[in-house]
């Protein structure tokens, strides 16, 4: 088992009000799975992704990633897991605007101390994997939305993470480009990566092997194909 969450809660306290973004989510993900998470707006999809991606910690419950309990980790350990185990793809790309595609992709390697030469090779390989070898030295504002998202995917890939997490990766893209991006995920899955995609669109979710539906911070149903 790659990912196992047990009764995850995430509660936000805002003044007198408490918001339960997650109310006891228990899911399991096998290595190599291609999974979608769906649900209405505000159902807690992003919250769950952030927890799985170790960007945030749960208020209650347990999260086991690769047989290690994430719940008790400190800041540095979480940073290490984010760097090594997780590749995050965001709806808004989240690339460094001043850096070239190549440098953006190199970034995760910088933070684990990879040497300059290997870093360059790794980043080039990752960019080639998303068919962007010819745009390496372009900055984000010189790239189309789809190309930017592919740079982001290359960045997520570059460290050979255990999981690739994508939170509405096509949310800012048109249909044609969305398909292009989904093809990339499909390819990654075929290569053996574990991919989890949050999406609003049924036809995108249909590309995956399993769909988890969230509602009001809890798992509503699961559909396996």
């Amino acid at each position, binding site marked *: 088992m790659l990912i196992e969450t047990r009764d995850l809660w995430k509660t936000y306290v805002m003044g007198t009000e408490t918001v339960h973004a997650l109310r006891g989510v228990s899911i399991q993900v096998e290595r190599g799975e291609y999974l979608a998470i769906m649900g209405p707006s505000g159902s807690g999809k992003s919250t769950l992704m952030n927890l799985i991606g170790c960007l945030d910690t749960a208020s209650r419950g347990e999260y086991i990633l690769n047989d290690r309990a994430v719940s008790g980790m400190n800041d540095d350990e979480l940073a290490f897991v984010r760097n090594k185990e997780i590749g995050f793809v965001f709806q808004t790309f989240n690339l460094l605007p001043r850096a070239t595609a190549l440098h953006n992709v190199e970034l995760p390697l910088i*933070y684990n101390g990879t040497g300059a030469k290997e870093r360059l090779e790794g980043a080039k390989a990752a960019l080639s994997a998303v068919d962007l070898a010819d745009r390496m030295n372009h900055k984000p504002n010189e790239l189309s939305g789809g190309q930017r998202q592919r740079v982001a995917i290359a960045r997520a890939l570059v460290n050979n993470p255990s999981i690739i997490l994508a939170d509405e990766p096509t949310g800012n893209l048109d249909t044609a480009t969305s398909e292009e991006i989904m093809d990339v995920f499909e390819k990654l899955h075929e290569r053996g990566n574990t991919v989890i995609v949050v999406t609003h669109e049924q036809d995108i979710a249909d590309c995956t092997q399993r769909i988890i539906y969230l509602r009001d911070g809890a798992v509503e149903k699961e559909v396996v194909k």
Partner: protein
Amino acid sequence: MKVRDLFENIVLAWGAMKANKLRSFLTILGVFIGVAAVIGMVAIVQGLNKSMAEQIESLGSNAIFVSRYKPGISINGHNEEERNRKRLTVEDAIAIKEFCPSVEAVSPSKSWWQYPDGNHAKYRNYEVSRPELSGVTPDYQIVYNLILQQGRFFNEMDMFYRTYTVVLGADVAEGLFPHEDPIGKIIMVNKGKFSVIGVAEERKSLLGKSMDNYLLIPLSTYEKIYPGDEGVWIGVQAKNNSLMDEAIDEMTELLRRRRGVPYDKPNDFAIFTQEAFMDIYRQITSAIYLVMIVISSIALLVGGVGVMNIMLVSVKERTREIGIRKAIGARRRDILWQFLVEAMAMTGSGGLLGIAFGLSVAMIINATTPLAATVSIPSMVIGFSFSVGVGLFFGIYPATRAAKLDPIEALRYE
């Protein structure tokens, strides 16, 4: 932090500075001014030091001076006791020579300033204005290391007969006798006729002011022309360097007796060596240094606060970038160092610019004035370290804030 990471961070910092050129420049202005002030002032003071030291050394290292007051900078002027002190006389000088066995030569001298606009020296149509005019004895040559390029110095006969003879400083000789041999010529000094017997060698100029615009006449002649009871300035040469202290003791003993100082009272005169002049000079320079340190500290402080302010703005502006970096695995200390290095790179380049500017000012001074401004490597190293230190110190708070940001919140920041 490893060297490679440091390099990485410097590249990042450079990029950040380039992205906001004007802002970065304005930010480092304070540091720039602070460092430039230090470098420039140190260069000038060291230039002064060099020419001062040469000047004072030219007096001869085993010269001792006797006067009514200790030289120095005093804010209050002289006190009652000091104002009532007896003047030193030629007889005192003679006694020193006679009774102090460690003393080689004694040179009493007096100087005249012709009212209202200084002394005049004239030969035919040639004139020299405002030369210093001193009455001296034969020993003057020994005590002040005076070397003649021509002719002879005064002897006991000149003293005895109060001859109207004169020894010219190099500038005076040049001014009065551009084409002629001065020796044996008669010149007018103020209202008297004097025969030139010697010409002195050029001396080192002091800060561009020539030290060769002077006339020497026998002290006895001087006293005849300018009778008056102004005191003499006494220069003494010890037999050798190791006898300096003895010579001073002997002179102190003698002068106390001659001036009737009770045994329980302090000296009512001053005996000092060229060291004393160096001390005065050091007092002046340390005052300059103090002012300089205050100015540049203020500049660096202001610069540092500016850097802190800009770094806080920068952290705020780049919240999202910090979020991205954290999301892909940057640890707190990675972010901390990134911003610290950025602050240090900023102030460090301010420091480098300051050093460059200070250097060019020193070079311009060198080229355009007689002052030999010298820029020392230590002052550059200190200037640079301080500027980097300011970045480090004032960067800590903003960098810590950046490092502590929560990744999710940072990513969500618009």
